[in-house]
């Protein structure tokens, strides 16, 4: 008898909760944001801060009542950086979880792999990966927030032109980011009157790159450019120092995290790289429009998780571009959200000021990249 009573009580409570829940849901549909990120695996240092950023801000948005009353429901999967998993998970997001918007695809490979699926399923997708191929040519449902590898190459070559450098040695890893950066460098060099005199490669798991650098040393290169991320660029920097090579060294935005400086130690000093303004937020002039956004993101992230990186910033940008689009659309209809994302104008994000259009699904100009030099183990904003 007693058991029955208890059971009745539990059922009653459950049904109350159920009613309450239903009531809430009836008020406004939830906005389902799906995400597939390389949280583990070789690109985890990109995916991990991205996930943390999304989780942190979605929690905050929901605590403040959601987007126009739409609570956000967040579903995310870890692709481990594998394109096949990315495809499976995007299918899962669309078919099983039935999400309204997808943010993710940490690496270019992951993002490129799913483009056909989102195009077919007609789900707005904001990629967090670098390759320019993601948005060029423009695909109706695909957007992205990070600066492209093409912009990085352009920024580096612009700086070289200023310093009068004409002969450049390339050294790149075998990942998608590295290879795509290399391809952009090779393609853009003639435009800037630059000759690529060496094109060396390494495996991202390699322990030593002195061989490739010895070959570079024997050329008449005036500067070295390394596209890569993870530990490899730090080994490259150390090996350059070991071999006593005194040439100017350029890294890509792939190393724009304090980890690189920590690993490379004093070998990092003097290295220049293009990067988002986030890592030098406090050095920006007070009237810089981005400064407020950057400092606020930085403060929030660091209070919760530790040192900030620009990669998490891309997720911030993608999330708030979506949020703004939903607010403007006033509905969670996929097609309307997509239209509004495309109309994003003057959005001040961590990566720069976004002005999207039907022909530009990124919306950043070259100014969004800052040229930075590492000085005494710290970032120094050059321009």
């Amino acid at each position, binding site marked *: 008898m007693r058991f029955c009573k208890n059971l009745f009580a539990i059922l009653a409570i459950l049904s109350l909760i159920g009613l309450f829940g239903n009531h809430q849901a009836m008020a406004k549909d939830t906005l389902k944001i799906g995400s597939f990120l390389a949280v583990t695996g070789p690109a985890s240092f990109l995916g991990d801060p991205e996930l943390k950023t999304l989780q942190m801000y979605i929690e905050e948005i929901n605590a403040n009542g959601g987007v126009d009353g739409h609570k956000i429901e967040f579903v995310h999967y870890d692709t481990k950086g594998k*394109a096949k998993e990315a495809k*499976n998970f995007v299918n899962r997001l669309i078919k099983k979880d039935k999400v309204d918007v997808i943010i993710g695809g940490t690496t270019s490979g992951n993002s490129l792999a799913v483009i056909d699926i989102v195009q077919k399923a007609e789900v707005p997708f904001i990629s967090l990966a670098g390759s320019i191929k993601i948005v060029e040519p423009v695909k109706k449902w695909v957007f992205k927030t990070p600066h492209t590898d093409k912009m990085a190459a352009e920024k580096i070559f612009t700086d070289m032109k200023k310093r009068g450098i004409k002969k450049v040695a390339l050294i790149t890893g075998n990942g998608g980011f590295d290879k*795509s950066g290399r391809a952009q460098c090779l393609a853009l060099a003639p435009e800037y009157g630059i000759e690529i005199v060496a094109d060396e490669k390494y495996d991202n798991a390699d322990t030593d790159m002195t061989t490739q650098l010895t070959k570079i040393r024997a050329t008449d290169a005036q500067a070295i450019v390394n596209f890569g991320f993870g530990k490899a660029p730090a080994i490259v920097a150390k090996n350059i120092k070991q071999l006593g090579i005194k040439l100017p060294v350029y890294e890509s935005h792939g190393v724009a995290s304090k980890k690189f400086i920590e690993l490379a130690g004093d070998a990092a000093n003097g290295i220049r790289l293009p990067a988002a303004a986030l890592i030098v937020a406090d050095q920006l002039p007070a009237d810089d429009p981005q400064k407020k956004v950057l400092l606020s993101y930085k403060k929030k992230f660091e209070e919760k998780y530790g040192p900030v990186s620009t990669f998490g910033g891309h997720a911030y940008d993608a999330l708030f571009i979506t949020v703004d689009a939903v607010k403007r659309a006033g509905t969670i209809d996929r097609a309307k959200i997509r239209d509004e994302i495309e109309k994003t104008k003057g959005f001040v994000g961590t990566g720069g000021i976004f002005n999207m259009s039907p022909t530009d699904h990124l919306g950043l100009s070259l100014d969004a990249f800052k040229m930075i030099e590492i000085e005494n183990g710290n970032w120094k904003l050059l321009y």
Partner: protein
Amino acid sequence: MKRLSGFVLFSAICLILPLLFPDNYYVTVVGLTIFINIILAVSLNLLMGYAGQISLGHAAFFGLGAYSSAILTIKYGLNPWIAMLTGAAFVAGLSYVLSRPILKLKGHYLAMATLGLGIIVHIFFVQADELTGGPDGISGLPSLSIMGMAIDSDLKWYWVLCSCMLLSVLFSLNIADSRAGRALSAVHGSEIAAQMMGIDTAMVKSHIFVFSALMASFAGSLFAHQQDFVSPESFSFFFSIELVTMVVLGGLGSTFGAVIGAFILSILPEVLIVFEDFEVLIFGAILMVIMIFLPEGLFVALKNKVAAFVAKRQEEGVDGPS
């Protein structure tokens, strides 16, 4: 028909599932991955389980099939079926040339050589950008069509891949129960004795190597068209290891062992997703626990247990199912 009763039951399950759950994520999305993995595991089992020749490079042939289809259809505009056959012919030729020197090796040295083969092919996929698209791979493969009907939905793919998978399982079962299969088992059991029975062991090994590579190549082509995308990491050394794990996990030398092993290793990550950061840990733990307690593999262990149970019941004079 007793010989194929297991196969008939298995086919029935595979064919009924999509009728019951036509739009289920696990059936029509995960199912496709499982089918491809089953074909691969079954083909590897022919080489490893039947003939006793370990291969840590099976993903290479899978990849070569996939890339052949991708490159030939996209860059040279070939009809997908012709591309698939061309790729298979290429894989057959390559595996035949390699089979003799490689299969002279035994045990760990054979493992090393096949591993090397797998890694070399993978490096080629990554580095030969102009041809293979580098790490980003090649996307936008045309869809297959059968007699004018395009295979463009998950459900259609389910039927295609399911039939191919069943065909490969049937092939494998047939081989096990034939002159060729016995020759393979003989090579596995004792190469010298096999030779004395007049079996050209080098040829037998080479033939099954080529056959197994061919199956993997076809699986690769199907995979490429189904995903309409190829990229190198699907064909890495890790995937080769995963395939070996499937075969051993299910039970070396048993076709249905390979099927079960492939099923478990494909479904496990999907199920373990909910554990997030714990996924890797749990996956490793499950693998260890199965192998520790059922070292002969899940399916084989289960089969032996059932057989022992039946034998015991019959001994006790109770009528067992016969």
